[in-house]
């Protein structure tokens, strides 16, 4: 399991979320205090403006309050669960907002995936650093596809449309990249 912080921090966030499942409002406040910056970051990357990001963040935490009992500490960390939940709420809101013009994804030669520099890498948490390192081993375009899928909620057909690649070609590329990522992260 990928760590999201030192073991003692992870364990106590897991425990706090489990307390939220019992209706503990102070634990809920603690979860908010410790995770709201990151979850707001998720919303800001997914939604086009700040107001919507703020709304999505509120909806996410209300979902956290209602569904905390669904968190299974044996399966993953609280932070991963929170990020997944928040991403889902934000993508729902993005889709509900009606037509949003999705930018094309450039041809291979033009693609530049933002790789973090040495200093940025040093400041990252261990799991982020590992992933960034492994993403760096992919072709830039494939890394862009994966980020776009995650932050734009763009599934295979949308990625194919935006990149101009045939669907089958695109799927094949991305699956190869995912297997490469798996091998790197293992």
């Amino acid at each position, binding site marked *: 399991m990928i760590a999201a912080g030192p073991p003692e921090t992870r364990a106590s966030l897991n425990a706090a979320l489990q307390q939220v*499942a*019992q209706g503990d409002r102070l634990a809920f406040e603690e979860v908010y205090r410790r995770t*709201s910056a990151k979850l*707001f970051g998720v919303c800001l990357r997914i939604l086009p403006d700040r107001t919507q990001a703020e709304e999505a963040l509120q909806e996410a935490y209300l979902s956290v309050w209602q569904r905390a009992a669904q968190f299974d500490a044996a399966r993953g*960390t609280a932070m991963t669960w929170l990020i997944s939940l928040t991403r889902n709420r934000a993508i729902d809101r993005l889709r509900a907002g009606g037509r949003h013009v999705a930018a094309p994804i450039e041809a291979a030669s033009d693609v530049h995936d933002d790789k973090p520099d040495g200093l940025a890498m040093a400041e990252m948490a261990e799991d982020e650093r590992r992933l960034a390192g492994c993403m760096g081993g992919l072709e830039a375009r494939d890394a862009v596809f994966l980020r776009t899928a995650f932050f734009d909620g*763009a599934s295979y057909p949308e990625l194919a449309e935006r990149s101009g690649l045939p669907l089958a070609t695109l799927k094949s590329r991305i699956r190869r990249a995912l297997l490469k990522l798996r091998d790197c992260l293992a």
Partner: protein
Amino acid sequence: MNDEDELLAAELAFGLIAGEERRAAEARADIDPPFADAVARWQAHAAALVGAGEAPRPSIWAAIEARLPANDTAPRRDSGRWRTVAIAASLLAGVMTVVAVERRPATPPPAVRLAPAPPLVAMLSGAPGKGVVAVSFDPRARRLTFAATAFDPGRHSAELWVIPADKKPRSLGVIDTTAPRTELSRGDAAAAVAPGVTLAVSIEPIGGSPTGLPTGPVVLSGTVQKS
């Protein structure tokens, strides 16, 4: 795990599949534990794409708090940390043995301190074998201590109510049935706790009653007395 399943888990986690295909993968995760583990692993990988983020404005927390289902009668304004677990000495002595059940090994054991004897107590019980909840209340400090024994509300919350002479239940909040706790209580509910008054525990949806009144069965009750 074979490549096909690994890829499906990754595709689900990254949001690469949608519609019926996604629903089918989610349904599979519900019933196939190794697959669910793979999905969780890939969700953790994908989550590592998210950087440090940015702190939201303070008013966002206030808005969230305001939208939580109300199980307090008075709004909380301070976020003082009163996370101490205290068991009233008079509550324990000669009344019952409280078993603090550690359900989650990752949680550090509660620090048990003996607090000064509180003036009001109640033993809440119901059908035999259903467990008991011992409650003590210090009206001066507005400190409510509860300890549940052999009482498990399952996938629900247990909510504590005070029912004074006017027969209208007022919530004292959701109680933690896994470990003894002390809380501060405020507002009408706390003010109503007095000798002779009934306290009761009802089974509610997780997080407590959404309506401000009991919506589930009352399973335990008792009368407040001076200790």
